[in-house]
């Protein structure tokens, strides 16, 4: 069975290789090939899953050693895979949702002449992400991590003829690099501390390292997670990443990429458990990001950017849960999976709306679309109910548990975190209701564009609606299925460990308050966008709204602090370089130049003067020799 693990990665990797190197002759079958290979990977995943279910909880982990990557004395890096329950969860999510997105892309990218290449990149993305979650050591994980960064760069900038897309891809890549630095430093620290970077030895021996080292490793891992998962302060790339084709957004936001940070923190749980300080920082980052994303999501008129804010916020929930330790890991992953379903569904729905509206993304120019796109409306609606945590749907089960765990943190912290998560839930309800009302309800607000083309909203083709329907099923039932008999907790417990949290208020009260804040959020959005017609031109808005429209000034902050600061730093360094370093170097060069200018006068071209120097030299040599003899 363990020999199948490599095949999980090999299938999409083969697809990427064939599609990217195969050339034009594959144009006609490329999209099918890519989809079939992604599906093949999913089938292998299901086979392994079925096999895993047949074994006891502790014996489920599989290992496959492929070959020694860097066999050096004292430094052993292997291409080796580990498939335990945590990796399995990710494998099924990545390949399952990934395959659905492949199918969707067949329809969505139908008129794009570079569709083959697009599928090649999608396959590459899947392969890199699978490598990331299947690696059995941090170095191989880092390889997958970088692969994900590369694939996201290629996909976000897929429409590179648009300068905005090219810039967004560059931005995503650069911001991610900051996080990647964190990961590489963490790996170096691990190697110097433990002498290895395989998961098993490192995570078992966290007690041997000093507190400072463990906290350092934890914070560096958190920095890495912030980069990939778009958490404050490395969140700025996520909104711009919407420049990529919509299936890419769905893939990045649901199945791959942003989940990598949560995976990293959960996988390194032992390190964070050993360092309460690092855990506290993780929780704070999660809490700040979940409000940050939610506030940004409330103000955006671009449907994809509103959803991007929502992703940031939901990942914030997961990071927060992961920072809570054993009471939260399981729920972080559970929310990740349910979020994978509904967020993929929402993005595919948004793509379907754009497909029918001539690629218009401004929600103020939608309105009343439920009549024109019934399937999209229903699937999007179910995703909407799931994300706001409507009782009974997926998001309810996972988010409610996170809120409960936040309260269970205990003390003042517990109350603050609980309040933040509840506030986040209210904001989620508000901004998602806003998206829903502006898109599907109210009067039609679209107008002919400058060339007089009026959009004719229509339902998308089957290849696009079927994945949306499947994801809608996941959005509705996944959470309940996971919570039934605590099956998800039991499934992950052997890997991540689990403790029951004890919130200071009863679980029923938490659930009740979740529902109350949900209703408040929905009600507020209804009063603002349901009762009154939505203005086509965005009103000026309050100071907070205007700030949120500019992503809460994140780019301005980065510009002022990092770009300007960097410029000043480089200018002063250039000045030092010009005056001090160049002064020394140029001064030396000039003095040698002057000296040689004088010395070259000796080369006067007269053969006789050369002869004099020869004779003179010989005479001196002879005289010296004789003198030495005499002494």
């Amino acid at each position: 069975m363990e020999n199948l693990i490599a095949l999980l990665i090999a299938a999409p990797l083969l697809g990427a290789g064939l599609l990217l190197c195969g050339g034009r002759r594959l144009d006609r079958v490329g999209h099918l090939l890519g989809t079939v290979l992604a599906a093949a990977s999913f089938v292998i995943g299901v086979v392994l899953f079925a096999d895993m279910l047949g074994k006891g909880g502790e014996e489920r982990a599989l290992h496959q050693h492929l070959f020694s990557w860097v066999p050096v004395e004292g430094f052993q890096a292997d291409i080796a895979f580990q498939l335990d329950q945590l990796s399995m969860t990710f494998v099924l999510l990545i390949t399952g949702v990934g395959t659905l997105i492949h199918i969707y892309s067949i329809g969505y990218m139908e008129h794009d002449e570079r569709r083959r290449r697009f599928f090649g990149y999608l396959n590459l993305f899947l392969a890199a992400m699978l490598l990331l979650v299947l690696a059995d050591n941090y170095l191989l994980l880092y390889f997958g991590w970088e692969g994900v960064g590369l694939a996201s760069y290629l996909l976000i900038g897929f429409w590179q003829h648009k300068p905005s897309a090219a810039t967004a891809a560059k931005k995503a890549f650069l911001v991610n690099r900051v996080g990647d630095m964190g990961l590489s430093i963490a790996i170096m620290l691990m190697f110097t501390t433990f002498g290895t970077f395989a998961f098993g030895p490192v995570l078992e021996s966290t007690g041997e390292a000093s507190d400072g080292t463990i906290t350092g490793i934890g914070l560096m891992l958190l920095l890495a997670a912030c980069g990939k998962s778009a958490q404050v302060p490395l969140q700025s790339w996520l909104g711009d990443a919407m420049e990529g084709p919509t299936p890419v957004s769905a893939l990045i936001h649901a199945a791959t990429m942003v989940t990598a940070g949560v995976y990293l923190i959960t996988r390194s749980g032992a390190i964070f458990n050993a360092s309460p300080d690092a855990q506290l920082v993780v929780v704070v980052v999660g809490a700040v990001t979940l409000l940050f994303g939610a506030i940004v999501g409330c103000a955006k008129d671009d449907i994809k950017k509103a959803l991007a804010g929502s992703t940031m916020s939901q990942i914030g929930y997961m990071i927060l849960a992961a920072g809570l330790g054993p009471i939260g890991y399981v729920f972080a992953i559970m929310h990740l999976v349910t979020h994978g379903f509904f967020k993929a569904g929402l993005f595919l729905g948004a793509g379907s709306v754009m497909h029918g509206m001539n690629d218009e993304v401004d929600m103020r120019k939608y309105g009343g679309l439920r009549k024109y796109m019934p399937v999209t409306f229903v699937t999007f609606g179910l995703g909407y109910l799931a994300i706001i945590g409507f009782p009974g749907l997926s998001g309810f089960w996972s988010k409610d548990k996170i809120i409960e765990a936040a309260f269970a943190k205990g003390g003042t912290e517990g109350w603050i975190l609980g309040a933040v998560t509840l506030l986040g839930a209210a904001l989620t309800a508000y901004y998602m209701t806003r998206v829903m009302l502006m898109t599907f309800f109210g009067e039609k607000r679209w107008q002919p564009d400058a060339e007089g083309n009026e959009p004719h909203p229509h339902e998308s083709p089957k290849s696009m609606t079927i994945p949306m329907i499947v994801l809608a099923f996941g959005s509705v039932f996944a959470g309940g299925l996971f919570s039934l008999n605590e099956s998800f907790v039991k499934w992950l417990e052997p890997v991540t460990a689990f403790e029951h949290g004890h919130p200071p208020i009863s679980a029923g009260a938490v659930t009740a308050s979740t529902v109350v804040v949900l209703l408040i959020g929905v009600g507020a959005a209804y009063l603002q966008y349901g009762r009154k017609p939505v203005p086509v031109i965005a009103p000026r808005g309050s100071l907070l709204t205007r700030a949120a429209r500019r992503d809460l000034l994140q780019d301005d902050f980065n510009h002022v602090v990092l770009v300007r600061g960097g410029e000043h730093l480089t200018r002063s360094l250039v000045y030092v370089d010009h005056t001090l370093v160049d002064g020394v170097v140029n001064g030396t060069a000039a003095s040698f130049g002057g000296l040689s200018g004088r010395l070259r006068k000796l080369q006067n071209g007269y053969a006789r003067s050369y002869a004099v120097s020869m004779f003179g030299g010989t005479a001196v040599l002879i005289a010296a020799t004789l003198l030495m003899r005499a002494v």
Partner: protein
Amino acid sequence: MNPVNYLYLAALLFTIGAAGVLIRRNAIVVFMCVELMLNACNLAFVAFSRMHGNLDGQIIAFFTMVVAAAEVVVGLAIIVSLFRSRHSASVDDASLMKL
């Protein structure tokens, strides 16, 4: 006759040759002075050969002659072509090889 006298003669001839190389401007004369220095060396070699009672010095003298013959061929050719192009055989006129 005392062989040391031949060494005095060789030193005298070498000095004359060297002085000629340094002082004279005419390339032909400079050239002949070089030959004079070579022959002074040859004389010294032969004298040493006689003094030490072996043939090493004589053999080296033959080598010197062969080298001198070859040098004459090349050197004269250079001087002739120099004279043809400049109508002068002065070594100071050919002073273009400088910075």
